[in-house]
């Protein structure tokens, strides 16, 4: 969507177009429902969540359908963002400098483009996670239809479904932390679409250069 990057008045720039924002929230709301009901099925200590959300039977009935909505949203994300998610040389350097990133020493990081290497990893983990969750989820949706001699399908599904879910939960927690707490302005960008030019320069210097046409060579920070 880089062709849609446009400078807005008051030093702001469009980061997420309407289609991207809408799709993000389809994925977000469906994922949160899946997470809550999934946790209810995961542990007796969380089963009260199912009661709060309308009871165990309702949660059992809706979880697969909401799962389909989530899968559709993730596939739409793929069509929107996959071209921007390929690993570059800068990404490899980014991973080697991860320690600086964790300690907020962003001036020691290789310049990230519209997405940094961590965001790309998040994208791919949700993409592959959603595929595994869909395939195993279909088996868990209709366990009574799996014949006895194909029961290994059920055994694989009951194990892989939570494994894939846990992988997405790890990424989800980091995603929420980064976007709501660590990078001020990121949460607003996925609601209203725009960020400040300072935000772009600090967190995505490569993207910033792209926006301002490479004319600005102001030193970062």
């Amino acid at each position, binding site marked *: 969507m880089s062709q849609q990057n446009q400078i807005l008045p008051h030093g702001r720039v469009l980061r997420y177009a309407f289609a991207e924002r809408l799709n993000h929230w389809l994925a977000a709301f469906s994922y949160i429902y899946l997470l809550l009901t999934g946790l209810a*099925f995961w542990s007796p200590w969380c089963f009260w969540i199912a009661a709060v959300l309308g009871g165990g039977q309702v949660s059992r009935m809706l979880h697969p359908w909401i799962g389909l909505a989530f899968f559709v949203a993730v596939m739409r994300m793929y069509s929107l963002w996959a071209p921007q998610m390929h690993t570059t040389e800068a990404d490899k350097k980014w991973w080697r400098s991860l320690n600086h990133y964790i300690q*907020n020493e962003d001036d020691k990081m290789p310049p990230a483009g519209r997405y940094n290497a961590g965001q790309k990893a998040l994208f791919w983990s949700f993409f592959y996670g959603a595929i595994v969750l869909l395939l195993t989820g279909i088996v868990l949706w209709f*366990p*009574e239809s799996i014949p006895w001699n194909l029961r290994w399908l059920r*055994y694989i599904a009951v194990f892989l479904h939570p494994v894939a879910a846990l992988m997405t939960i790890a990424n989800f927690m980091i995603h929420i*932390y980064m976007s709501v707490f660590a*990078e001020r302005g990121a*949460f607003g960008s996925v609601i209203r679409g725009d960020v400040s030019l300072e935000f772009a320069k600090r967190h995505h210097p490569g993207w910033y250069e792209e926006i301002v046409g490479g004319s600005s060579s102001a030193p970062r920070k």
Partner: protein
Amino acid sequence: MSQATLRMQKISGHAGSVAGEDTQRQYTVAKLVDTTTCIGCKACEVACVEWNDMPFSPTTFDNTYQTMPETRWNYWNLITFNEHEKEDGSLMWLMRKNQCMHCAEPGCLAACPSDGAIVQYTNGIVDFQQDKCIGCGYCISGCPFNIPKFNKETKRVYKCTLCTDRVSEGLEPACIKACPTGCLHFGSKEDMLVLAEQRSKQLKDNYNFPNAGVYDPKGVGGTGVIYVLHDATQPELYGALPSNPTIPLMVKLWKGPLKWLGNVAMVGGLIGLFVHYLRFGPKDRDDAPREGGQP
């Protein structure tokens, strides 16, 4: 026996302790099925359907005497018929009363996520509580005997109750009462094991069945239904009775190590992120003060 037998010692999907766990010593009940004296009359099948007030269920003909290929949500008791040709060319017609085995360590209960949907009473009976069943079917994956069956209309799972309603009133299960040959017995597990050992000794000593023995598989902690088999070394001959049934490995891994690792990782991750924020804060904290309007 009294209503006290309905005290629970195991509860599915349950957070915290269980009132009946290790609180009393009580008879564990068991059915003994002597396959060597079963004549395949199916009186037990009819008695089960009658007592539990099941609707009519169509049968399937597959060139044997077997009523249907496997148990159904409304058909909990099924005699399996299998023909086995021995090495000397003689034929054995093996009939086995198939139903829930009421495992001491039930896989269905271990897999169930719904609080109280599957319980084990202190007398050993494993019972489904359909009002608490959410219809996820995890019990189907937990059972090594292919017993729990899903009803698509009610979206709940059903199986043999070992006639909990009769047993708690001091009566024997309906199938036992209907058996005309006396191949079915009911009583304490201890007594049934003694009876079963006596019978298999008789079969070995007097009836030329050197491999006769008792089926009480240890992989599921022993069962509340035990068999006397002509050949205890080959239980598979009796309609796919598993020789060493256990809770499936993937179910054990899921409910054991994965659950622990996952919980530690999730709680540890939350604590880690919180501490990170305390230590390092937001990424732009050292930037110059900004004008208003920052989202």
